[in-house]
């Protein structure tokens, strides 16, 4: 049997690793990704484990790396991603000592240095910028105030003095000399500042302002602010303190301004040189920072991968047991039996790398525990396996529905989505994704919707392909039909008078007028139906029967698959008490229904079609044991129909107690026999059998029939009753449930017809020269709606319904509930690939 039919055979192994070699071996196993380690110290908390220091150091390194990455991103430096996968760095000798030194030397030191440097540079830069701002402001003040002072010293400005002095004279303390304060303030604060000064000093100060043309950078947040230089003249100490307080309140920066012009010039010169110096320093630090970051950007991806690998290795080593002599680490792991060789090889490689001489020992153990389920998939089957696992991970070694889903899933989808045009769009889109698989994968697009479609590209490809096929069957392309082979119906022989006088004419295949060529259309539905008035009722009958036939076939197939489970797990009782009555029940009711459908399709020709029985009525009457009364027709389809149907109903009804009662009573008898045997102290054959079973690791899973546990008749009986009722009612409701195939297919066809009629048809019906232009616009509209509504939304709905038919909620499932337990747990191997992928996803 193929690899996907059952999950891989697993075995629990004990792994003895020499302490020196453990790190290298685990690293090799991580690259391989085929081993699932079990936690051997579950009661030890995370802080008491052996390698907690190493893990902590890795965490610290990761934090520093993230800091570096943030800085790199802030500066828009492209991060080099070569896509290479460096191995976890190798500790040279003793794990504890050497590892610490190794990491410290190569990584930590570099990181720490870089980190400190960066922090320093950042701090410096801020201080420098602040300094720079102050100096530029001072420069502006000096330049602008020069103008004021020039004015003051000229004759005209003596007016100011005069006015201030006169007002002061009223105040009573005239002095000759005016004091002044110069500073810089935000431009938007200026009006309020001015008003405040005027009010607080009762108009006794003189304010002069000049705007600084270029914006200045605020060092704290890097904003660009416009500022204004001001200078305030006043007289007396009292006013000076008042003015200073107001300046403080408005967060204006005051600068000392020398009195004499020569001092001012000197100061301006000094300031200029200091600004120059600062600029050079600033530029140099920026350059240095940039260089450091560029160098880091080249390696940061590799560092991340390495650190994460080291961390994962130590996490795994934490799961191990230390033996008494402290020289050896003991691990327990689940391993696929088929991969034993590769794992041994990887272990040997690890030992060689670490330079150890003692090779690790891999020892198979027997266990009663159920092994994890591991289905070996490739990129094609992966998507389908994921769909199945959404229902529940299969029990260990159970029949896996995924290989069948590869065909049934797209097929049932296509039954609901049948349209050549829409199928083609879907197919081409998926084909593009499959074709450009590697480049698209390398791009690592994080868009959730895209990744979802990309993950299911092979499913979509098959769904599109099957939709083209069913579209051909339904003869449907954007709601139009293709007349490839020529319709089998013709109206040529209808007299002209009839055509003129009738709105609707019947093309009767039975008439003598040769309206039907007696050769059916080769593939799919005859295109003539597209124009007919009774198209929907014809298609409904066809699609309804179709969905019942497909549904019963799939359910029957599901029940058949359960036989493989029963024989594999050696449960003969289930074959006799479940499988056989289940098959009989399904066949006698719904198998017969399917046969009737085919019978009706084949047996009745156009002239006898009037007497063809309604299949639904026939089925209902069959269960109710009534006759089919159709006037003018024979009451039975074939001789002995009545008796045969009664026989089938009888079988179906007999199957119910068979399923319900036999198994619990047989189990009860077996159990009491066993109890008696044990009471007699005789080692009967039964007990021997028990011993055999207990050593067999596969059958000792979840089935209590052979186990030592207490046999509870009531529990078994209730369980069986639920199972029986679920099956009997289920097969009826599930058959009805498959009618969704018809309903959705009808809805899809109708929707696409409406879209054509309401949008594109309008464009086609335009007369005059502008018709083409309107058609141009409407076509784009129609195309967008077709993709958005019909392909995406309808496609999603059909997808969900298909998923529902295959697997969704436990007791409601049509296909898988027939054979699938889904009680397993997934195999989660220790793999660097998975760990790195998860870390990257968490990053973004």
């Amino acid at each position: 049997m193929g690899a996907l039919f059952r999950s891989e055979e697993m075995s629990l192994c004990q792994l003895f690793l020499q302490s020196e070699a453990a790190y290298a071996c685990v690293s090799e196993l991580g690259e391989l990704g085929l081993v699932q380690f079990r936690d051997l110290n579950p009661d030890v908390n995370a802080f008491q484990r052996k390698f907690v220091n190493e893990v902590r150091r890795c965490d610290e390194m990761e934090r520093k790396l993230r800091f570096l990455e943030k800085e790199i991103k802030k500066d828009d430096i492209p991060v080099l991603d070569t896509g290479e996968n460096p191995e976890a760095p190798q500790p040279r000798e003793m794990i504890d000592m050497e590892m610490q030194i190794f990491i410290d030397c190569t990584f930590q030191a570099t990181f720490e240095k870089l980190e400190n440097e960066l922090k320093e540079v950042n701090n410096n830069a801020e201080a420098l910028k602040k300094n720079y701002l102050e100096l530029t402001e001072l420069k502006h003040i000096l330049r602008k105030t020069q103008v004021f002072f020039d004015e003051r010293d000229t004759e005209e400005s003596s007016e100011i003095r005069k006015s201030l002095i006169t007002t002061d004279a009223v105040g009573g303390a005239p002095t000759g000399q005016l004091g002044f304060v110069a500073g810089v303030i935000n431009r938007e604060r200026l009006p309020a500042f001015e008003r405040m000064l005027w009010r607080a000093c009762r108009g006794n100060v003189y304010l002069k302002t000049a705007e600084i043309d270029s914006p200045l950078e605020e060092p704290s947040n890097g904003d660009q602010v416009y500022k204004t230089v001001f200078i305030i003249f006043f007289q007396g100490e009292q006013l000076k303190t008042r003015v200073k307080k107001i300046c403080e309140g408005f967060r204006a920066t005051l600068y000392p301004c020398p009195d004499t012009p020569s001092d001012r010039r000197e100061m301006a010169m000094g300031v200029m040189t200091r600004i120059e110096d600062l600029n050079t320093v600033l530029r140099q630090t920026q350059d240095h920072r940039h260089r450091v970051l560029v160098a880091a950007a080249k390696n940061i991806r590799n560092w991340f991968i390495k650190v994460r690998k080291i961390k994962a290795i130590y996490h795994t080593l934490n799961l191990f047991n230390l033996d008494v002599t402290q020289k050896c680490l003991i691990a327990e792991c689940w391993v696929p039996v088929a991969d034993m060789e590769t794992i041994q090889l990887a272990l040997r490689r690890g030992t060689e790398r670490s330079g150890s001489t003692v090779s690790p020992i891999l020892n198979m153990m027997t266990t009663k525990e159920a092994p994890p389920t591991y289905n070996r998939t490739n990129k094609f089957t992966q998507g389908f396996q994921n769909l199945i696992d959404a229902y529940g991970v299969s029990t260990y070694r159970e029949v896996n529905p995924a290989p069948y889903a590869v065909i049934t899933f797209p097929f049932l989808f296509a039954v609901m989505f049948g349209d050549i045009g829409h199928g083609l769009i879907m197919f081409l889109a998926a084909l593009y994704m499959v074709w450009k698989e590697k480049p698209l994968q390398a791009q690592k697009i994080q868009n959730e919707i895209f990744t979802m479609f990309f993950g299911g590209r092979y499913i979509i490809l098959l769904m599109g392909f099957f939709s083209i096929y069913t579209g051909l069957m339904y003869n449907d392309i954007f709601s139009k039909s293709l007349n490839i082979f020529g319709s089998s119906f013709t109206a040529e022989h209808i007299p002209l008078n009839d055509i003129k006088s009738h709105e609707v004419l019947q093309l009767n295949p039975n008439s003598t007028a040769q309206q039907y060529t007696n050769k059916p259309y080769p593939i799919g539905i005859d295109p003539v139906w597209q124009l007919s008035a009774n198209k929907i009722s014809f298609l409904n009958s066809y699609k309804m029967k179709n969905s019942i036939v497909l549904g019963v076939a799939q359910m029957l197939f599901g029940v058949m698959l359960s036989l493989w489970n029963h024989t594999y797990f050696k449960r003969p009782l289930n074959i006799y008490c479940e499988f056989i009555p289940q098959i009989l029940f399904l066949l006698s009711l719904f198998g017969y229904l399917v046969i009737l459908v085919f019978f009706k399709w084949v047996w009745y020709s156009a002239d006898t079609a009037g007497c063809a029985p309604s299949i639904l009525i026939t089925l209902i009457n069959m269960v109710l044991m009534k006759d089919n009364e159709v006037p003018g027709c024979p009451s039975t389809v074939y001789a002995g129909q009545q008796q045969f149907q009664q026989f089938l109903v009888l079988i179906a009804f007999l199957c119910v107690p068979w399923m319900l009662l036999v198994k619990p009573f047989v189990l009860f008898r077996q159990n009491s026999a066993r109890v008696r045997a044990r009471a007699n102290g005789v080692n009967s054959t039964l007990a021997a059998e028990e011993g055999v079973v207990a050593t067999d690791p596969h059958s000792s899973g979840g089935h209590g029939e052979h186990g030592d546990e207490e046999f509870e008749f009531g529990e078994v009986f209730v369980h069986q009753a639920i199972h029986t009722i679920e099956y009997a009612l289920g097969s009826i409701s599930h058959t009805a449930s498959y009618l969704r195939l018809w309903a959705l297919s009808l809805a899809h066809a109708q929707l696409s017809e409406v879209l054509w009629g309401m949008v594109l048809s309008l464009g086609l019906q335009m007369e005059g020269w502008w018709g083409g232009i309107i058609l141009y616009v409407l076509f784009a509209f129609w195309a967008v709606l077709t993709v958005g509504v019909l392909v995406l939304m309808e496609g999603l709905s059909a997808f969900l319904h298909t998923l529902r038919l295959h697997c969704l909620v436990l007791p409601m499932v049509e296909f898988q509930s027939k054979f699938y337990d889904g009680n397993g747990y997934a195999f989660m191997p220790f793999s660097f690939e998975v760990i790195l992928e998860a870390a990257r996803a968490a990053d973004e």
Partner: protein
Amino acid sequence: MPGCPVLGPKLSLCCLLVSVWGTLQLCLMGVFFYVHSVGLLEDLPVAEEIKRGMLKEYLEEVDYLYSKGAQNCWIAACLYVFSMVFSIWQFLANRRLAERIEQ
């Protein structure tokens, strides 16, 4: 000069796809109208009084409308060829812009 992109990279790709689709489908539909495909009869705007009137008039009207439909389809297809050229140009311009930014 490669030209400045008016449409973004995604929009130009989307327009390109619709244009290719439109060109193909409308060309084909034009051919189907031209050969008087019965499937498209429902899309012809035949007036009710002509439907009920003389057969000859009806046939003439249908013939006329078919050729008119074919003409409309081909005009629209031509327009789509233009928009295809336009979106290819836009697409390339966008790509070149992206390359320049990368450098």
